């Protein structure tokens, strides 16, 4: 990794903060557009872009309600930790040719650690308000999280095999000839399952689900709710960027500059995940646990075997 441009910490904060903020807003706008498309409403980019801004303006002035005897420290820390972990995850992903905020050699280990700690943040967010429905949501989420967590480890390690490195930059470089999405066809679908899980989107919206009145976020209001929603959108941006880098060849592509390719591929992953949100029903937690261990985990084994055989 000789030609890597490592950004200074301050520049890194600006780059990651900007990417996450713009990305998160983009996620909301895309979500509204897809919602309108599936609902059969007239599509209007102006409406989709303006509506969230207007809601944000009122939500920050709304009263943040507390509950009876909540764990206030954890209630504040949960969205903070979740947003922080989104930043961690994005910091090890190269955003352009050799441009990475934290160029650690063990990129996927750091990424995996952020993903595992996100489970803790999500659980504590449900636990903190001392309210039944959020707490139940938190506990049932952990069961699901322990099931999808393994998949991500397997597919990321499988992607590291041909690169002979745990650095995500090196994994992108190793896809010069052929992208991992072709070389290891099971990797991306399994990683999308993990993405849906960590950002509790669509079929894996186990924690902030409609059947228990918004679950983990049921007691959040005002800024507390906005922070949680924004952190969730930021996490989706980080995971989509990682999926683009690890499976879709990152910055590799003709004509356009590398960073542009990266942005386009990230966008494609975001659209895929959010389309799943509107077109797939939420899966029951116990059903997903069974599915993850008996179907998806063997598929992850197979993915590793394909990657191993392919890179020899």
């Amino acid at each position: 990794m000789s030609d890597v441009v490592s950004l200074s910490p301050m520049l890194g904060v600006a780059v990651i903060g900007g990417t996450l903020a713009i990305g998160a807003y983009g996620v909301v706008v895309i979500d509204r557009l897809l919602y309108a498309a599936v609902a059969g409403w007239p599509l209007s980019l102006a409406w989709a872009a303006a509506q969230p801004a207007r809601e944000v303006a009122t939500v920050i002035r709304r009263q943040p309600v507390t509950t009876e005897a909540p764990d206030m420290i954890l209630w504040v820390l949960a969205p903070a930790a979740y947003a922080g972990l989104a930043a961690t995850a994005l910091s090890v992903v190269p955003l352009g040719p050799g441009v990475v905020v934290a160029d650690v050699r063990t990129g996927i280990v750091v990424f995996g650690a952020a993903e595992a700690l996100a489970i803790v943040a999500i659980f504590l967010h449900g636990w903190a308000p001392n309210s039944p429905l959020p707490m139940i949501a938190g506990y049932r989420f952990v069961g699901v999280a322990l099931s999808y967590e393994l998949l991500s480890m397997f597919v990321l390690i499988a992607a590291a095999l041909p690169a002979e490195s745990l650095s995500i930059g090196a994994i992108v470089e190793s896809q010069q000839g052929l992208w991992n999405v072709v070389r290891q066809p099971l990797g991306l679908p399994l990683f999308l399952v993990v993405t849906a899980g960590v950002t509790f989107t669509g079929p894996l919206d186990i924690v902030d689900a409609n059947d228990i009145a918004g679950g983990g976020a049921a007691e959040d209001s005002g800024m507390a709710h906005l922070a949680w929603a924004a952190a969730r959108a930021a996490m989706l941006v980080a995971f989509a960027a990682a999926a683009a880098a690890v499976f879709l060849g990152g910055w590799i592509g003709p004509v356009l500059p590398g960073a542009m390719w990266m942005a386009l591929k990230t966008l494609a992953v975001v659209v895929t995940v959010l389309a799943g949100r509107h077109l797939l029903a939420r899966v029951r937690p116990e059903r997903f646990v069974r599915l993850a261990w008996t179907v998806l985990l063997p598929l992850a084994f197979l993915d590793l075997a394909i990657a191993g055989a392919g890179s020899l």
Partner: protein
Amino acid sequence: MLGAFLSGLTVTCAAALFTAGCVILARRSTRYPSTAPQRVPALGGFEPETHAWSRFHVRYYPMALLFIAFEMEMMFMYPWAVVFVEEGVTALVEMGMFLAILAVGVVYGWREGAFRWQ
């Protein structure tokens, strides 16, 4: 390398502090303190009899144990992934055997109903 970790840490802390700061500021500066009826957990109108916090009986203990077995094994897979191409078929066979043994655990857990919740 250390500098890279420092960058990552800085970015993480900045994002976390910013988020926490926004929430704390909003909670401190609100003009409306929460009243007792507002603080009641939202269940659709009526009150719960007790606090929510309790010894919550999750139904996935065996699955969680199985998870730990796999998660430990991941630690070995990271260095294995780096030297995989060098070591060649030996590495593939070794990891195959390792995973096969763990897979027996999954099959046993499945038979015992570890993935059922009720």
